[in-house]
């Protein structure tokens, strides 16, 4: 693939990426993968914890309003987004509707299975994109294709090693066990990161779910400084339990640059009708 094609693939399909990024941030792309039989129960338990943390901000279905703030060296921007996800079927449906500001309002992106479509309210047209072209930067944010592949990668392409389990207290003062899990890609796995360091909190009560705290991405397995860091903060007691209401993706290779997502409302397990994930929902 020559450089032109790479560039084409990169920029033309930022939308497709963006959708998946957000889909990852809020709703799972697909149901968590079952672990292969024969793996040790420790590994299975670690995988289960990571899966819980990854799906903490999304139930079977979810609906959330969020503010996305992009801070770059040359501009700063804030979007208001409505994101709806429905993972009750294998297709993994996501609809992102931009609520503001003016120039963006009404733009919508819909992903159903592999089909991604984009709606522009000004031309009232829907453009369908193939999913074969995925690149790296979405809407000028710091979320990349690699991040969006994370969910699949973490459950399928990485091996887990729990490095530490220490007792600590979370932001609300509740005692929790903080797990530091190192993820290394399995041999031949098609992943972008050489090492991922996942930190999650597990509450002390029985049946409490794991919550993500911080995910650091290293380009090479022996790098000591991460390139990117995804941090969860603003732990809040909600109807659905404690949840981190802020996600910040720091671009550590570009000092001062980050993309932050603040949830203002979040609701789970709404019984969406099929209509809400069709092109008709755009209008």
């Amino acid at each position, binding site marked *: 693939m020559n450089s032109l094609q790479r560039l084409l693939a990169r920029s033309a399909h930022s*939308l497709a990426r963006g959708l998946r990024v957000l889909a990852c941030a809020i709703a799972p792309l697909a149901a968590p993968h079952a672990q292969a039989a024969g793996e040790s129960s420790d590994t299975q338990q670690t995988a289960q914890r990571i899966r819980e943390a990854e799906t903490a901000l999304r139930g079977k279905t979810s609906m959330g309003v969020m503010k996305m703030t992009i801070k770059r060296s040359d501009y700063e921007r804030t979007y208001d987004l*409505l994101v709806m996800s429905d993972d009750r079927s294998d297709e993994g449906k996501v609809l992102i509707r931009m609520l503001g500001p003016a120039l963006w*309002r009404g733009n919508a992106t819909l992903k159903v299975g592999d089909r991604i479509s984009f709606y522009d309210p000004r031309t009232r047209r829907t453009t369908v994109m193939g999913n074969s072209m995925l690149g790296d930067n979405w809407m000028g*944010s710091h979320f990349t294709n690699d991040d969006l592949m994370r969910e699949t990668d973490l459950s399928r392409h990485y091996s887990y090693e729990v490095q530490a389990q220490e007792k600590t207290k979370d932001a609300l003062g509740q005692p929790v066990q903080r797990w530091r899990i190192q993820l290394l890609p399995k041999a031949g796995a098609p992943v972008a990161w050489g090492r991922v360091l996942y930190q999650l909190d597990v509450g002390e009560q029985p049946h409490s779910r794991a919550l993500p705290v911080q995910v650091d991405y290293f380009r090479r397995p022996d790098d000591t400084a991460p390139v990117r860091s995804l941090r969860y903060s603003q732990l809040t007691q909600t109807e659905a339990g404690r949840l981190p209401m802020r996600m910040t993706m720091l671009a550590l290779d570009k000092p001062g640059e980050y993309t932050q997502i603040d949830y203002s409302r979040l609701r789970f397990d709404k019984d969406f009708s099929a209509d809400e994930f069709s092109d008709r929902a755009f209008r």
Partner: protein
Amino acid sequence: MSSLQKMAWRNLGRNRKRSATTGLGLALAMSLCMATLGIMEGLSRDLIRGTTEGEVGHVQIHHPAYPDARQLRQTLPAGPALMAQLQQQDGVQAASARMFAYAYLSHGSRSSGVQLMGIDPVQERQVTTMHLQARQGRYLDDEASPWPQARSLSVEQEAQDRALTEAAIAAAFDEGKPAPLQENERAARNAALAEQLAPRPTRTPGVVLGAQLAANLGLDPQGQDTEVQVLYETSQGLQGSMALHVRGTTRSGLDHQDRSRVLLHLQDLQHMLQLAGRAHEIALRLHDPSQADAVAARLQALPMEGEAHKVQSWSQLRPDVLALIAANRALMGTLVFIVFLIAGVGVLNTMLVSITERQRELSLLKALGLSPLHLVLLVAMETLLLCLAACTLGLLVGAGLTAWLQIQGLDVSRFGSFSMSGVDMAPKLRAQLQWQTALVPLACMLLVSLLAALVPAVLAARLTPATGLRAT
């Protein structure tokens, strides 16, 4: 020494047929080598011209990081004042500003990733021959589509904008879907705000597509259905989509361009990307292309409205073309050398036979007191004279042949068309008469001939007069 020259010249004349045959062989080798080298030079010239005039230009100016990163926001100023200033620089004939963006083009159910290239057709015509690549339909209009002026929001409008966001959040979350009536009203208000911030053109911008791209999208540029949708990202990170009117197609000969290139007016693209008055690339045409490096160095010091820039000559931009030319030259040099090696063996044979025939005579000269060194010189002189005569003839014929090839050209169209480094080569190969094309064969020939003369000359010098005189 003059008697040696006389003797050598006379000796050549002793067997005129043989000397003439050898000399003609040398002359033929010489003239054909000249013509071949001339054709190669002509090809190199066409290659350079095709590269620079096809799209590259002689010199290009970019944002320092743009050539490697090709980020949308790495732009240069390209207002009319700056363009005029560039054109007035020493050695610069014309300047053309360009803008590039990657986008997604769709028509019906078909779509393709494309590269948008914004050019000013009037400027571009003075720098490159890109307009000659037009195939079907029409080329770009000289005038861009009219775009209303964008205005930022007033304080009141900003408040209205925030209220619209709040209303949308409330409606979306409480209902899942806003009530239709309110929705219509809000949509109308928002459309007005968006139109003010980023107005759309009052006429659909025209584009020219690469021929293969048009075919892949199932378009017929001369048909009725010639509207395509483009999905792109502005320099502000805004996703935009709009309709474009397909005017025609181009064919550059470069496969990836024909599959992905979309030409449109520079100002249309500047408006689309919210980069008015900017450019990603400024290509220059020079009066004298050979001065490209010097002009590039001079322009590097130009202030360019105080913004950082990087100036490169075509040879820095396309080192592959220079490498291709160097490789061709090396190959041709090897061929010339082989030809003259064979010619040298011919000379060697002629002189060996000549020495053997004149054994008695040479022995007599030696017996009469001619030193071995003089004998070597005599034989070398004979060879040299033969060569010089052949060279003169060869040069004349070679120059004539090259001149004919330069004027008439060699029609190779029946072997099919071909391109080198993405440049379509003319169906007629034209030679280029240059002193190098004569000098290389000339030097080769003299060197090889003198080497070939060495063996017979040494043999002659080592003759023993007593034995030689008795030889039959």
